[in-house]
């Protein structure tokens, strides 16, 4: 059930330049593919009147800070009882602020949100990550492996440093194949260069998260191979809970193009629904 909670920072480390692993302690149970909306405001700022009495601040003045105004959507990178892990890349103001949070500080988290990855009965699965797209697929991989599935994890990035958490992935038991644009690790070229071969030897559905062009290429290969393909999308969000209609993506359902909310009906979609649809069609 979606909750609004203050979780405490257990650890917070920079795992690559500008990429942080944030471990929060607290009881949030999420499925792989779900996400949370995180407030990036420093926790020294009282969020509401409610918190003020007795703190020595005058009632009418200790007002909420309001910039950055919106929460930031971040995928559940891992989740165990009492622990929620996020992996994020510093991309702008909000994530810069979040990166300043220290162990013991608290972080205001809304979640879990959205639909998780559909877990088919298939014995096998191919996961395709591009860069920070590894964030939700890490938890998916662990969940599938613990359910006894065979996971082939294709992981691409610009350069070796962009292959975040590849060691932990390999340790988890997944078969990890790397690709880099500059050839500094694994296959020299796009991660889709690994997918064709993979589709030959693994019969499972394909789960992909990464930059838009990568997702399109993955979807195209799967379509040609008639393989089920599930993608996790990003969209600018305001509320994260389905109320604002800000995060829509055009999808094709029963032959009709309609807008669907990435935060509520997504962020996980069937590739054929998303990529058969002209972005402005409805």
């Amino acid at each position, binding site marked *: 059930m979606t909750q609004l909670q203050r979780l405490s920072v257990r650890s917070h480390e920079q795992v690559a330049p500008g990429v942080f692993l944030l471990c929060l302690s607290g009881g949030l149970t999420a499925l792989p593919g779900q996400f949370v909306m995180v407030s990036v405001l420093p926790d020294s700022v009282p969020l509401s*009147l409610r918190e003020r009495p007795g703190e020595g601040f005058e009632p009418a003045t200790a007002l909420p800070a*309001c910039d950055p105004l919106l*929460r930031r959507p971040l995928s559940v990178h891992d989740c165990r009882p009492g622990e929620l892990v996020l992996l994020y890349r510093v991309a702008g103001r909000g994530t810069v602020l979040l990166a300043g949070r220290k162990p013991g500080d608290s972080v205001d988290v809304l979640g879990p949100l959205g639909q998780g990855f559909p877990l088919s009965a298939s014995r096998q699965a191919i996961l395709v990550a591009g860069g920070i797209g590894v964030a939700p697929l890490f938890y998916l991989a662990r969940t599938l492996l613990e359910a006894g599935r065979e996971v082939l994890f294709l992981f691409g990035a610009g350069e070796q440093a962009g292959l975040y958490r590849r060691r932990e992935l390999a340790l988890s038991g997944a078969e990890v194949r790397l690709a880099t644009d500059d050839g500094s690790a694994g296959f020299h070229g796009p991660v889709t260069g690994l997918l064709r071969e993979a589709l030959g030897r693994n019969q499972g559905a394909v789960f992909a998260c990464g930059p838009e062009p990568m997702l399109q290429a993955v979807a195209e290969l799967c379509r040609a191979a008639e393989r089920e393909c599930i993608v996790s999308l990003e969209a600018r969000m305001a*509320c994260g809970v389905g109320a*604002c*209609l800000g995060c829509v993506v055009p999808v094709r359902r029963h032959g009709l193009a309609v807008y669907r909310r990435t935060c509520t009906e997504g962020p996980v979609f069937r590739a054929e629904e998303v990529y058969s649809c002209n972005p402005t069609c409805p």
Partner: protein
Amino acid sequence: MQPDLSVKIGRLELKNPVMPASGCFGYGEEYEQFYDLGRLGAIVVKGTTAEARPGNPAPRVAETPAGLLNAIGLQNPGTEEARLKIRRLARYGVPVIVNVAGHNTAEYCSVVEALSAETAVAAFEINVSCPNVAEGGLSFGTDPRTVFRLAGELRKLTEKTLIVKLTPNVTDITEIARAAAEAGADALSLINTLLGMAIDTRSRRPLLANLTGGLSGPAVKPVAVRMVWQVAGCVDLPVIGMGGICCANDALEFMLAGASAVAVGTANFSNPLVCPEIIDGLAVYCREQGFSAVRELVGLARRPAAHKAGGTGGCGRK
């Protein structure tokens, strides 16, 4: 003693002055999981048109300093499906206000007519910020004559409380407010969003697919408070104030400026509990400052001698 938070908007009695703003709360479904919606003073639903509308292409939202730009484009399921969602809200025993939108007068009329006999509907809020197709796309709400005509037509169609929601994108909002009052509106609500734009310096394109969008959130609060002050000073109708309200203190600013009730939009997105928190905060303020009813606060800042307690915080020599 628990202060009396009830207020009246025309004949509409609200148990407290706090309601979510249209378009920021859907039809209530999404926020039910966070608290009992029965605590709200009223519920204002998403802008509703005659037929379903798909809305604008994405991206539809962009964050700005202390603000939010949106160009949702009135995505909504149309009057008949909205009716079902509104009936569902009746269980909370809270007045439901239907925000009405349209591209021409006939569309506004058709929504109001269709829902006028609906007992689950307590009032209509007329969103006159919609582009007026008959007048070349300028919003209905920028011309006093158009507002007068539109509100007058709608007045004939319903006995229910009729609220006209004003756009801030005008030279003189009091002119529009007076036109709505003369046409028989029971109340005014303001402000809708300010027209704005943001550009992504990486892609070198506007951040919204629609190019421009409506600015809301704390950034616009000073403009909204000023307009509420102006309108409350020139028209003898209850005003519902909104624009950037994030906490009880903000709500109080609007009430002191002359608003009888307030609506909270964008703040729901960062804090889903903001509405009940504001309701509690208003009660705390009344108790601490010695007011037995929140309605005593309405317009107090307009009366120079109305200092009950406090001072100027040591600042400003007067």
